[in-house]
């Protein structure tokens, strides 16, 4: 996605985002549309930690930041990203921080109190939720963070709205002196749609820090009055919500049925009512915190039945029911509380909304989904699954092989967030518990304390910097016996190869001081720290064995570059890859297949063979073959 990475990823030339042609109409990904919104809003600083489905916001900005004249950074984690931006916006410069939904958990400590302090320059926090857990460990509904923090929340339903609302969020933020949440979902972030441009605003990068301790220093005596101020701002925000162009009655219908919806749910609701031939009223909410109480109240009065269509938690429904008590106590309200007409888990779809509405109205859906389901189930019976797997040539495969070989599968293996989480699947089977960023090293300590069993915790390089360091310090301080395997592939691979503190480059494509994981570990007080190349199986095994036997905490850094990065560099330099080759010494013992699960090793005509288009010549299979039957020549 980044310009610096072209050749590997032949995706669009992001310079189209810089175009100074108002009313130009282009196809943009929701996340690219937010990047365009950043340019139209005159935002000077963008901070982010990459995470699906938010990553392309930061990546798009990184690609064009220098030319656009703004500053962006990949911060160490989401809390740092918010804290850096909090400094920026309190000097009167506009900023945006983008993160995935769970990133807001990390940032929440800063966000909750920044709400008291407020902002001088417009500040937008993008929280990208992931209904259906396409690429996440949970599917929490971050609209509740708006409720919890008293911050305004905007919810786009299309790329166009994502762009427009980014600009509006900055205006709203400055009007109220509050950060504004822009809550997206995967189907907004990762949907492309036509976007019509507005005017660019030259970003202002320089501001001034003004000492205002009573507003900025949140000791109890100052925090109490600032809480009152926050509640006053929230009241003002509600008045804005009543008049917001994003809260609108899209159609009135015949007065029988009224639908209230927000974000992506609007798209499904609109198509579902049209499919069912329903003449309904639709109240589409784009500003979902604070909600426009009077507007919703009047809408409730105008219909006999109200249906709330929303993804994940019944956030709107709870509020609508509370409003109904005052405005329309007799109106029937259908949603997902008490009786569930729509799913509370996973993402919505036109089908889910059609099904729910059909049940409520008694209308028959125009499509017989049951028939499709049974016909489909019959056709795909026994179809082998194709879950995401480690790439051919991935150095993590070698690391997992070593960990398994040395510990014989007898240790417990807490794992973490990153590509290496895929190691939990057979045949590698390294990954016994996974909670959140940085959890592996700390969870391992508890498991060892409770069982006495050896633990080898796995963490990636970017995740190590993000959240594992306090856990490592804890292991040293409380003398927990744990081995931390840092699988360092020199990039934030899973989210699209963003740089991090260990890579020596920044989001602005400048060089940076490399923060070395082994030095950090030593600095934390770990006495046994070693760096190995995972493809050097013998050496890596010897070191890991030592580490596991070490009486206190130990760290082994398995360092080898991400194969996608490596292959891309080879292609750029014109270096040919000579794939590995199975020779006639092969006895078809299947050790390579059973131990490694590499997608490039296939069975062809009953014999082990190597797919030349997939093989990266990493040599792992050659080095573990018991019969030395795989040749991996030079490349």
């Amino acid at each position, binding site marked *: 996605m980044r310009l610096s990475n072209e050749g590997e990823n032949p995706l669009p030339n992001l310079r189209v985002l810089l175009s100074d042609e108002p009313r130009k109409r282009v196809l943009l990904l929701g996340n690219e549309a937010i990047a365009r919104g950043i340019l139209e809003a005159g935002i000077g600083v963008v901070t982010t930690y990459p995470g699906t489905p938010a990553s392309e916001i930061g990546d798009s900005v990184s690609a064009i930041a220098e030319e656009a004249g703004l500053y962006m950074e990949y911060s160490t984690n989401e809390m740092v990203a918010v804290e850096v931006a909090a400094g920026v916006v309190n000097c009167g410069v506009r900023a945006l921080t983008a993160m995935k939904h769970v990133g807001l958990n990390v940032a929440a400590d800063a966000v909750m109190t920044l709400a008291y302090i407020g902002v001088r320059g417009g500040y937008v926090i993008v929280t990208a939720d992931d209904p259906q857990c396409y*690429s996440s460990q949970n599917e929490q509904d971050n609209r509740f963070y708006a409720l919890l923090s008293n911050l305004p929340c905007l919810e786009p339903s299309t790329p166009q709205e994502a762009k427009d609302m980014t600009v509006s969020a900055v205006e709203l933020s400055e009007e109220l002196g509050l950060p504004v949440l822009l809550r997206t979902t995967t189907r907004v972030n990762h949907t*492309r749609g036509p976007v019509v441009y507005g005017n660019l605003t030259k970003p202002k990068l320089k501001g001034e820090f003004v000492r205002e301790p009573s507003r900025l220093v949140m000791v109890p005596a100052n925090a109490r009055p600032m809480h009152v101020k926050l509640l006053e701002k929230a009241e003002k925000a509600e008045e804005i919500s009543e008049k917001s162009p994003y809260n609108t009655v899209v159609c009135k219908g015949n007065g029988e049925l009224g639908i209230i919806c927000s974000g992506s749910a609007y*798209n499904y609701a*609109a198509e579902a009512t049209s499919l069912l031939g329903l003449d309904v009223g639709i109240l589409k909410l784009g500003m979902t915190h604070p909600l426009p109480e009077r507007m919703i109240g009047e809408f409730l009065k105008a219909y006999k039945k109200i249906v709330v269509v929303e993804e994940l938690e019944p956030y709107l429904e709870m509020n609508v029911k509370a409003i109904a008590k005052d405005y329309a106590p007799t109106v029937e309200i259908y949603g997902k509380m008490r009786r569930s007409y729509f799913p509370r888990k996973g993402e919505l779809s036109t089908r889910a909304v059609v099904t729910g509405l059909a049940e409520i109205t008694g209308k028959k859906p125009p499509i017989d989904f049951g028939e*499709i*389901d049974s016909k489909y189930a019959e056709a795909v019976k026994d*179809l082998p699954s194709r879950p995401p797997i480690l790439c051919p040539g991935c150095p993590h495969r070698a690391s997992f092989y070593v960990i398994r070989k040395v510990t014989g599968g007898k240790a417990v293996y807490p794992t973490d967030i990153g590509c290496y989480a895929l190691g939990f699947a057979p045949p590698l089977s390294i990954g016994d518990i996974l909670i959140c960023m940085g959890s592996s090293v700390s969870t391992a300590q508890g498991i060892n304390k409770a069982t006495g069993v050896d633990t080898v915790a796995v963490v990636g390089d970017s995740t190590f910097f993000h959240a594992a360091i306090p856990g490592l310090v804890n292991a040293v301080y409380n003398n927990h016996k744990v081995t931390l395997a840092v699988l360092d592939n020199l990039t934030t691979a*899973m989210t699209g190869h963003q740089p991090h503190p260990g890579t020596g480059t920044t989001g602005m494509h400048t060089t940076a001081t490399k923060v070395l994981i082994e030095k950090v570990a030593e600095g934390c007080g770990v006495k046994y720290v070693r760096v190995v190349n995972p493809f050097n199986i013998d050496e890596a095994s010897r070191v890991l064995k030592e580490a596991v036997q070490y009486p206190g905490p130990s760290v082994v850094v398995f360092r080898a570059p991400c194969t996608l990065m490596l292959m891309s560099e080879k292609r750029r330099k014109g270096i040919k890859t000579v794939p590995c080759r199975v020779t006639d010494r092969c006895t078809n013992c*299947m050790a390579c297949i059973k131990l490694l699960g590499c997608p490039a090793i*296939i069975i062809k005509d009953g014999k082990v063979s190597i797919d030349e288009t997939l093989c990266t010549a990493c040599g792992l299979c050659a080095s573990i073959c018991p019969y030395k039957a795989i040749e991996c020549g030079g490349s």
Partner: protein
Amino acid sequence: MDEFNIVLAGVGGQGILLASEILGTAAVKEGLNVRVSEIHGMAQRGGAVVSNVRIGDKVLAPTVLEGKADVLLGFEPLETLRNLKFASEKTLVLMNDETVPPTELMRTMKKYPSLNEITEKIHRFTRKLIVVKAADLALKAGNILTRNAALIGALAATGNLPVKVESLEEALRELVPAKYLEVNLKAFKLGFEAVGENKSSRF
């Protein structure tokens, strides 16, 4: 036109996202409304990938409803089967015959289903099936990674798309990096000819 729905299905790394973007960009060039829905993330390579392209005035939802695909563009036979729920008797299935066996098959020593079995299952949903040797065409063009361009070319030749061939070519020129453009255009042309020459496969 109310809506025209394309489901693209295959394996991560086959160029599905770029193919979807080419279709979407071509639609925008013609002033049409469009939604292209993708899933990024977890798998850089090797996982099942599905993308939806919906073109038309009435289109709002990013995803195609079951049974409502006008075209199912299969980059890989098993993944084509996996997405048959979007197909009906009106759906054109255009499928690349290049197989990518899931690692599960290797580990369990099971066989990849034959092309006949796959065809039979597709025929339960629709008779409109065109099989394209996109990998061969891509290699003939000069780079296996152009199989997506070959498939788009093949789809264009069926005359089923609501966008012009010229718009697709223009989108290709815009989206493909300069040094890969020529080989992609060649693959597009080979794909177009492969289907175009076989008139009986037109619908």
